[in-house]
């Protein structure tokens, strides 16, 4: 690999005869231009030409894709939707926090119009969700919890203790024994730590 060189979007890197364009690059008028600001990476993949790509950091970042299971934290709720910060994609932590939205009709698979966001999520809950859409420039990732295995995994009660799930819609605080409503995820037994 050649030594790391910085580039900005729009910078012409090389011509198509020298390299094949990879991620973060664009092919125009027979030349390869950078579309991201970062480091230029040239890799010999084993074909005739090396692949040229622009990366933000030395390791490539995993982006949430449609259908990926993500772990997120609820930041605010609204009668119509809940806003979340996406923390993990699968089991890889993300360096930046992406924003997601869980709409009211995507919380459950059944009885969608009777959903109350206050009885499904609260700010501070850790939720397992699936990406249904990447959204456009202004909107966030659209997520859904409309499956048995998706929903609230970790939640704290009003007293501050971590709650124990009792059913798919209720969790109980071990200190005050008060029950609170959440949309609880049914975690597979092999992922639970004893």
């Amino acid at each position, binding site marked *: 690999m050649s030594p790391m060189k910085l580039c900005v979007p729009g910078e012409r890197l090389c011509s198509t005869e020298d390299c094949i364009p990879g991620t973060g690059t664009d092919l125009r008028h027979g030349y390869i231009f950078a579309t991201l600001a970062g480091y230029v990476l040239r890799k010999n993949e084993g074909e005739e030409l090396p692949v040229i790509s622009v990366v933000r950091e030395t390791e490539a970042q995993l982006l949430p894709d449609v259908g990926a299971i993500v772990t997120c934290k609820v930041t*605010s*709720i609204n*009668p119509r939707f809940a806003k979340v910060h996406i923390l993990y994609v699968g089991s890889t932590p993300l360096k930046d926090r992406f924003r997601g939205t869980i709409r009211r009709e995507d919380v459950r698979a059944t009885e969608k119009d009777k959903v109350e966001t*206050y009885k499904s999520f609260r700010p501070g809950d850790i939720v397992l969700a699936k990406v249904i859409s990447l959204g456009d420039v202004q909107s966030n990732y659209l997520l859904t919890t409309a499956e048995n295995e998706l929903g609230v995994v970790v939640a704290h009660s009003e*007293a501050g203790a971590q709650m124990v799930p009792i059913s798919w819609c209720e969790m109980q605080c071990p*200190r*005050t024994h*008060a029950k609170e409503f959440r949309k609880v995820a049914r975690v597979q037994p092999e992922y639970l730590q004893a």
Partner: protein
Amino acid sequence: MDTVHARFKEKIGEVLLPGDVFSFRLPEDGDGDGNNIKTEKIICGPGFRRNGEEVQVCKSGILRHKQPNLYWIDSQQRRYVPAKGESVIGIVTAKSGDIFKVDVGGSDQASLSYLAFEGATKRNRPNVQVGDLVYSQFTIANKDMEPELVCIDSCGRANGMGVFGADGLLFKVSLGLVRRLLAPQSEIVKDLEKIFPFELVVGMNGRVWVKAKTVQQTLIVANLLETCENMTSQQRQTLFRRVAEGSL
């Protein structure tokens, strides 16, 4: 062993402070058969919090008791915290699109949809202006979301709610006095009725609206309500009697 009730009973009528603890660790059983321990049920009302085996006091006030097993802390507070189902007097501060923003005296302004009035449709908008008083109920009121109000009940009828207050005076009292005014057989209201007739709307957020025949009578009623907060019933009745004789 009536330890649980006894511990509460000895403090009835006393002033408790946040941090006072009632601990209910079961005593060690000497003969090991467990028959001496009776399970008793106690209902802890507002001002109490359970913490494992203890019950902690989290508001300062006087411990009250109601048969058979209900205990609560009677506390004085002026700041209102919205709670679902309570009827309050709100002041309309802004009209934006489909909703009105209403000030209820809490930390956040509440929203009131224009369709939440009796007989309101998309074409038939209710006649509500900025600065109007509305008597309405909370449908959503919790610490994580903006509170929402409605002026109809679950059947769709107004039931006394809506815009009011063309004349009259709106003033603020403490929440304890509001609870006393709204009690079923309120002595304060009964004593006031004897002086002269007036209209009274009481909101659970500490706001009271009064209207009497003349401006002077309205002001008298408002002043009396504000002063009878810290009076015993004897002092209040002497004061009302003096006012009734003086105004006639």
